[in-house]
């Protein structure tokens, strides 16, 4: 049996959904995008262009829930299938778009560079439990106007895993789409084999900005998958109760769904989010709070109730160091997320409220993810019944270390974390250098970088990517890109 955790009974879930519909139809949503407003108007929404406002209708909500696909797949840069977002399948992806990284040598949080990003792609290439890359942080050594597309460029060039990303402006969408077209060849091929997922955020409460709503439209037109990242902050920009926050999250996410699906019925989406409670003592948005994680799991249940694949920002930490807090918040989130069946689980590597990535943490989290993936395989009988023969064998042989049963099922029954999770006895641990977790993780980062093999993307595609990116850089006054020898 696959273990599953649930927080909402049917009655409560349905009430939350019906209240959210009420909010959409009676209070409506502010949308700073004339094209979208008039499209909604065409489908029967009551639109007020002066107030940038639309009142939804139940028909719009029903229509878009019906046209949204219940599953979709992702493919790596070489075109191989990597993800099937359906049912309770779960995949991990690193936390995206950090401002900073935690520097191993100085132990300080600093702005990242191109070299850090390349190292990141090399590490993520080798992490078996992290299924996709994300554009995890922003290299600070290029012009800020290209910093979103530049991350995608480096990712596509260096690592073959599909990419969870997002644009910071309307204009950036174009180059980011062109980079993907360079990899896939044609628009049709890109639509047939999606390579990226874009995060698009409504602004709580109940609003879409021109940038993020236009990103939704542009993605839909190219059938590029999006994840809606609604961020109600409980007690501040949303009701303090988890239920109230869920009503708001549902309304905001359904409004995004309508924009995508009316633009292009059937375009792939993830029912996602990054809600949080608001900590009134520190004015912060704790992602490691148990209540934040409960909201995540619960809206994922609502997404599943609609028959949609889901996403959440849930396995990350607010700590500033790779310490106990980092480990416990990340593993609590990862554990809950896999048990709830969140399809795309965002967060590994992330510290400091989505603000800081750490390669060492990413390596630790990879092992945490491995354990949680084992967890959901559950407990299954494997030639265990009848039990008598096995115990006769044990009593006779005095151990089962080389029993046929052991040899057959050892690796299925037990996940072997390491080299970061330490299970050596104390003497051996001491003899092997008495390394702390941070040091063990760093050693693993170094090993992954050393063993990295360049992506087998054809040379001509790489050259095309480079040409596109250099062209974009020139538009913003940069003669060359920081790394020449890629």
């Amino acid at each position, binding site marked *: 049996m696959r273990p599953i955790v649930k927080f909402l009974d049917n009655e409560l879930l349905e009430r939350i959904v019906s209240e959210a519909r009420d909010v959409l139809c009676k209070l409506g949503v502010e949308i700073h995008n004339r094209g979208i407003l008039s499209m909604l108007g065409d489908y029967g929404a009551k639109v007020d262009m002066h107030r940038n406002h639309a009142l939804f209708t139940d028909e719009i909500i029903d229509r878009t829930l019906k046209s949204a696909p219940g599953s979709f797949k992702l493919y790596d840069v070489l075109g191989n299938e990597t993800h099937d977002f359906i049912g309770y399948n779960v995949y991990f992806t690193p936390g995206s778009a950090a*401002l900073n990284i935690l520097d191993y040598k100085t132990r300080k949080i600093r*702005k990242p560079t191109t070299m850090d990003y390349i190292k990141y792609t090399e590490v993520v290439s080798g992490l078996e439990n992290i299924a996709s890359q994300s554009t995890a942080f*922003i290299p600070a050594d290029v012009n800020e106007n290209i910093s979103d597309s530049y991350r995608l460029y480096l990712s596509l060039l260096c690592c073959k895993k599909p990419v969870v990303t997002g644009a*910071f402006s309307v204009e950036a969408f174009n180059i980011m789409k062109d980079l993907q077209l360079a990899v896939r060849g044609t628009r049709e091929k890109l639509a047939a084999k999606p390579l990226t997922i874009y995060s698009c955020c409504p602004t709580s409460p109940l609003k879409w900005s021109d940038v993020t709503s236009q990103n939704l439209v542009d993605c839909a037109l190219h059938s590029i998958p999006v994840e809606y990242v609604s961020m109600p902050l409980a007690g*501040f*920009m949303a009701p303090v109760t988890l239920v109230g926050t869920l009503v708001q999250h549902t309304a905001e996410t359904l409004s995004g769904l309508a924009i995508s699906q009316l633009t292009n019925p059937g375009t792939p989406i993830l029912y996602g989010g990054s809600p949080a409670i608001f900590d009134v*003592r520190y*004015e912060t948005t704790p992602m490691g709070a148990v209540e934040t994680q409960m909201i995540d799991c619960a809206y994922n249940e609502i997404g599943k109730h609609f028959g949609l694949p889901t996403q959440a920002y849930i396995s990350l930490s607010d700590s500033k160091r790779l310490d106990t807090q980092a480990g416990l918040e990340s593993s609590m989130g990862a554990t809950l997320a896999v048990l709830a069946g969140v399809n795309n689980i965002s967060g590994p590597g992330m510290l400091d409220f989505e603000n800081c990535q750490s390669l060492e943490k990413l390596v630790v989290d990879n092992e945490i993810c491995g354990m949680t993936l084992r967890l959901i395989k559950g407990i299954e009988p494997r030639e265990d019944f009848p039990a008598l023969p096995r115990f006769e064998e044990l009593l006779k042989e005095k151990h089962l270390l080389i029993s046929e049963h052991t040899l057959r099922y050892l690796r299925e029954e037990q996940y072997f974390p390491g080299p970061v999770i330490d299970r050596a006895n104390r003497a051996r641990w001491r003899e092997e250098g008495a390394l702390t977790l941070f040091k063990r993780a760093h050693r693993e980062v170094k090993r992954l970088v050393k063993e990295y093999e360049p992506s087998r993307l054809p040379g001509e595609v790489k050259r095309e990517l480079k040409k596109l990116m250099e062209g974009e850089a020139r538009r913003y006054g940069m003669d060359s890109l920081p790394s020449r020898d890629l």
Partner: protein
Amino acid sequence: MDILKQISENLRGGNDKKVLEFTKLAIEQKIPPKDILDDGLIAGMDTVGKLFKAHEIFLPDVLLAAKAMYSGMDELKPILIREGIPTIGKVVIGTIQGDLHDIGKNLVGIMLKGAGFEVIDLGNDVSPEKFVERAKKENAKVIGMSALLTTTMQGMRKVIDLLNERGLSGEIKTIIGGAPVSEEFAREIGADAYGYDAASAVDRVKKLTREK
């Protein structure tokens, strides 16, 4: 208890009706308006600020106190203006061009207002020209800028350059904040101060307005 103390204590408790009542009483009893402001309202908010920093009270308590402060302030303001008594100063705040994150900026605005500043909030996606022109027009002492994106933080430099260009940098001070910026970045772009949360913003803006 004397009236000013009543004002500041009730303010601390977030009791806006009582703050209004005692402010009216103080005005009736001809207590100098400057004293009502300094020793009543602002003194109360100072205590609230300290308790908040010490984690003895939480943000909602501060906002309730700020609301109570406005109720007294609304009564007092016409008198202060009539008698030509300056308020502690005007601050123009906004989120920088291209950036839509305004939650942190809003909090900073509420707290500055609570501390007695007149706050002109330009909203988000604010161009350098708008920051500078509005600050000049309003005779503001400080411009407060917020950025949450690496792509927009450089826009802060443009505001400061524009102030320099127009010879206003001595007159109008600048303070910056938001997750991607730091004390060092403030120094690098020539901002006068950096604040990491709403309470620190109040401290530093107070310092800036006292400096001249």
